[in-house]
């Protein structure tokens, strides 16, 4: 029973309580750069989740073999391997998605969420728990990217996943799909998340 509760807590914490984007402000490069549409956001989120889960599980599997002196080199090699695999898989699924994500697929190697989870969790815990922790963080990252992408595409292009939302008379706010729009939306979302968290904390204190 205790084990189930630990697994659930590990998985859920990455989704909201320790959300890599909304709470830790990690992975800002893809968060701001590729969230100009829903499909780009979801593709980047899922590709990162794949790399996160695979590398965390392999690092956890090899954790007792890797001496601390070479851990960073080992982690980076494992992460780079799965990024290369993800790169091939995305090309095999859709060249269009591959082109729209561009250089940011290769940049998953230096996404600090992955290195962060490897250092702080996978190198100290079992395979199953590390996989769950990585899945939680990966889906938390995907959720954050999806929120950003949905808001930016709806306001900046008048569409959601390519489907028109407001009709042809809508004049899109182009700034929202430009880099500065990324900063505006991220700032607004951080404000909302912090207000929600503060209110929940106050309600719990009163209770």
């Amino acid at each position, binding site marked *: 029973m205790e084990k189930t509760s630990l697994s659930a807590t590990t998985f859920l914490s990455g989704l909201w309580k320790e959300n890599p984007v909304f709470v830790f402000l990690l992975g800002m490069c893809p968060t701001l*750069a590729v969230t100009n549409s829903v499909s780009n956001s979801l593709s980047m989120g899922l590709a990162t989740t794949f790399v996160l889960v695979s590398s965390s599980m*392999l690092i956890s599997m*090899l954790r007792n*073999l*890797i*001496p601390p*002196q*070479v851990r960073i*080199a*080992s982690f980076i*090699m*494992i992460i*780079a*391997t*799965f990024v*290369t*695999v993800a790169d*091939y*898989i995305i*090309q*095999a699924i*859709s*060249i*269009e998605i591959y*082109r729209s994500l*561009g*250089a940011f697929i290769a940049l998953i190697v230096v996404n600090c969420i992955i290195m962060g989870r490897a250092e702080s969790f996978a190198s100290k815990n079992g395979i199953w728990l590390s996989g769950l922790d990585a899945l939680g963080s990966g889906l938390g990252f995907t959720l954050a990217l999806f929120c950003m992408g949905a808001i930016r595409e709806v306001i900046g292009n008048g569409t959601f996943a390519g489907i028109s939302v407001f009709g042809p008379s809508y004049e899109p706010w182009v700034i929202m799909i430009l*880099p500065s729009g990324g900063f505006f939306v991220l700032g607004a979302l951080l404000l909302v998340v912090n207000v929600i968290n503060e209110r929940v904390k106050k309600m719990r204190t009163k209770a």
Partner: protein
Amino acid sequence: MSETVTSWKMINTLGLIAVISGVLIVTSYQLTLKPIQANKDLMVQAAALEVLPGSTHVKVVRLDGPDAGRLFFGYDDSHQVSGVAIEAQGQGFADIIKVIYGYSPKRQVMIGLKVLESKETPGLGDKIEKDAKFCANFTALDLSLNADSSGLLHSLQVTKSGKKTEAWQIDGITGATISSKAVGRLLQSNSSTMIPIIARMVEGYHGKD
């Protein structure tokens, strides 16, 4: 002594991880090779139709010898050759830029261009795909042949933004000078070789009719 053991352990661990990485990368490469190639072929054929306005379908013609490569002959509703799409590539600012351009043998002009692959700097070099003014260069760019059809009458040239005066000149992009010049250079080098070859092929094709 213990230091030697630790050194070996470190080397062994890194070696083991390198082997695991190698196996994973090579396996995924082999498994995805065919679907990736199929996807790329589909994308290039769709791009060929895009750079050949008026074409309803394309046929791939493979070239042998020193000019080995492929051409995409576009046909209109009445099964007449409406244009030929040619793949070209050259060194850009960040990496190789791959493009496909459409050529009308009848009008002897370039009728369209699409960037297939580019890793140029986002916001600067990627204007070669996004800048409407730059893209407009390639809708009627002069590729006239000389008298004996052995080469181009005028070699393509890239000018500074807004300085284009001739039909064979390409208006460059301010802020993406290197990338726009790279596109001009790769088009100039490719067109000077390929356009005479295409002209001979089209002539032979009409001769057979």
